[in-house]
């Protein structure tokens, strides 16, 4: 039953290598169908599938945001490329990859090129860590949550490097804002995660999700969810916390000097991180791929049902982000940092205390009895 991404990748790898091996004479065939070779190719296929899936999802996410934002604004969004503009982002992507990428003469070469690349790569790595269904992605890693958050918090470094090396004042201010904001909101996010870890008793995302089969964690940990969502909005640099690329005062923020492919990297990575943020919220608070008990069994037992429900939740969370983007103004840097340090950190601490209390008085199983929350 347990089809996992790794098992799928291994199966594909075996099929390919077996086909090659059957053509080759014996000594070569043995080397090709060796367990190590199969595993190595399986890892590559695993990565390729992940890359493809995450990129596709990101592009669909961008399309979804544009359409949704258009509707919020009383218009229709992209319409003319493909059905309802579905191919719009592919056109954008191909065009951007085709375009010149101009490096300003005074820019620092190494930082200018490596910043966006590293930004994108570090964000992509996380997809290998996050599970999307039982056994999907890399299987059970005992510290996957910590690893994901650690890699997630690399970003300000690379943003700052690319902002500084593009030798533009707007970029510099944007980069500094970005670094300050991400570091400030790193703390409440981690504290909110501590609350989750206290309740679930594990750093393994698989376990955390399986712990939520009875009740989703947003019920006991509502405070932590609020802190986590606010922090994630800041980490993803979306309105109302999109100060680093505040269009009104800093032309495009830290990507002012980037055009062509590098700009595509930034754009794509922004949405990759939005996707990652939605993933984490669903994993930690909204039960991952588990569904409440009142959902009929047929709806949760078809093939890949876990992934389906998981992605559905992710898109709903992202829709909420878009809704926020359409209806809230942008805050100011000092206000953002003040809210971060003075409000979010205490709130996050409070949520940790609440979680600890819940665990000590052992009232958590009660929540599982309420039928609407879980099964």
């Amino acid at each position, binding site marked *: 039953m347990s089809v996992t991404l790794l098992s799928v990748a291994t199966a594909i790898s075996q099929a390919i290598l077996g086909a090659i091996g059957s053509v080759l004479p014996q000594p070569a065939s043995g080397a090709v169908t060796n367990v190590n070779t199969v595993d190595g190719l399986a890892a590559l296929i695993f990565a390729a599938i992940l890359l493809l899936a995450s990129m596709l999802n990101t592009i669909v996410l961008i399309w979804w945001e544009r359409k949704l934002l*258009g509707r919020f604004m009383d218009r229709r969004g992209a319409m003319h490329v493909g059905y309802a503009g579905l191919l719009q982002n592919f056109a954008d992507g191909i065009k951007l990859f085709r375009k010149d990428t101009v490096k300003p003469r005074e820019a620092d070469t190494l930082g200018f090129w490596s910043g966006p690349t590293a930004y994108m790569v570090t964000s992509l790595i996380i997809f290998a860590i996050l599970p999307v269904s039982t056994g999907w992605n890399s299987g059970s890693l005992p510290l996957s949550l910590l690893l994901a958050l650690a890699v997630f918090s690399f970003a300000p470094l690379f943003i700052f490097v690319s902002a500084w090396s593009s030798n533009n004042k707007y970029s510099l201010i944007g980069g500094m804002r970005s670094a300050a904001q991400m570091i400030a909101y790193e703390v409440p996010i981690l504290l909110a995660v501590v609350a989750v870890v206290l309740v679930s008793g594990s750093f393994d995302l698989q376990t955390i999700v399986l712990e939520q089969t009875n009740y989703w964690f947003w019920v006991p940990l509502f405070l932590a969810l609020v802190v986590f969502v606010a922090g994630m909005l800041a980490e993803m640099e979306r309105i109302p916390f999109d100060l680093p690329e505040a269009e009104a005062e800093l032309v495009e923020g830290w990507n002012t000097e980037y*055009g062509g492919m590098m700009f595509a990297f930034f754009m794509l990575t922004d949405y990759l991180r939005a996707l990652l943020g939605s993933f984490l919220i669903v994993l930690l608070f909204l039960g991952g791929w588990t569904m409440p008990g009142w959902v009929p069994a047929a709806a949760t037992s078809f093939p890949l049902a876990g992934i389906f429900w998981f992605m559905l939740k992710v898109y709903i969370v992202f829709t909420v982000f878009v809704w926020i983007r359409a209806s809230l103004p942008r805050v100011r840097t000092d206000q953002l940092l003040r809210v971060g340090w003075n409000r979010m950190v205490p709130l996050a601490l409070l949520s940790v205390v609440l979680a600890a209390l819940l665990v000590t008085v052992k009232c958590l199983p009660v929540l599982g009895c309420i039928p609407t929350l879980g099964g």
Partner: protein
Amino acid sequence: MNASSVTTASGTAKAPGTELPVVTQPGVPFIEIETLRAKEFLPAAKEALSAMIAERGREDLTQPVFNWAGRNSLFPLHWGLACCAIEFAAAFGARWDAERFGIVPRSSPRQCDLMIVNGTVTWKVAHKLIALYEQMPEPKWVIAMGNCATGGGPFRTAYSVVPGVDKLVPVDLYIAGCPPRPEAMLDGILKLEELIRERKE
């Protein structure tokens, strides 16, 4: 048939390959002949291939794709010179919604491929306009929107006005009107898309 058996045999480099008609000296092993042949063949093949790609491939295969992408995602520079800028903004409003065509204004010239000169260009702003044009990466297009950008409009005789932006940067398309209605601007952009469709490198 013959070739495949030779190829598999060449992996072990033991086949004599004497049945090939080109081999005149009996003692020369097949692999060396092949290497010699390849040495002659490779540069020629490379040349032919690259010529083919240059002539046919780029124009017939990749160019339509790139032109399709380029014409369907034109990012104009987000700036407003004068009256036409208001109509430019109105075209992005709810009624006309230029984003339907994938047109998204970007504030940074590095991320743009279309400069819409929407208004009167004065001599004071001329060198900034040229700088912005130079900052835009290739391939790039310029639309002169409205009579002022086309030829100075009602201010043609004035001391401070550039009589047409084509004195400063190459213009691909002119849109008449003072100011052009948003429909006219969108029509101009669609005309530009027609131009891009037939574009060759």
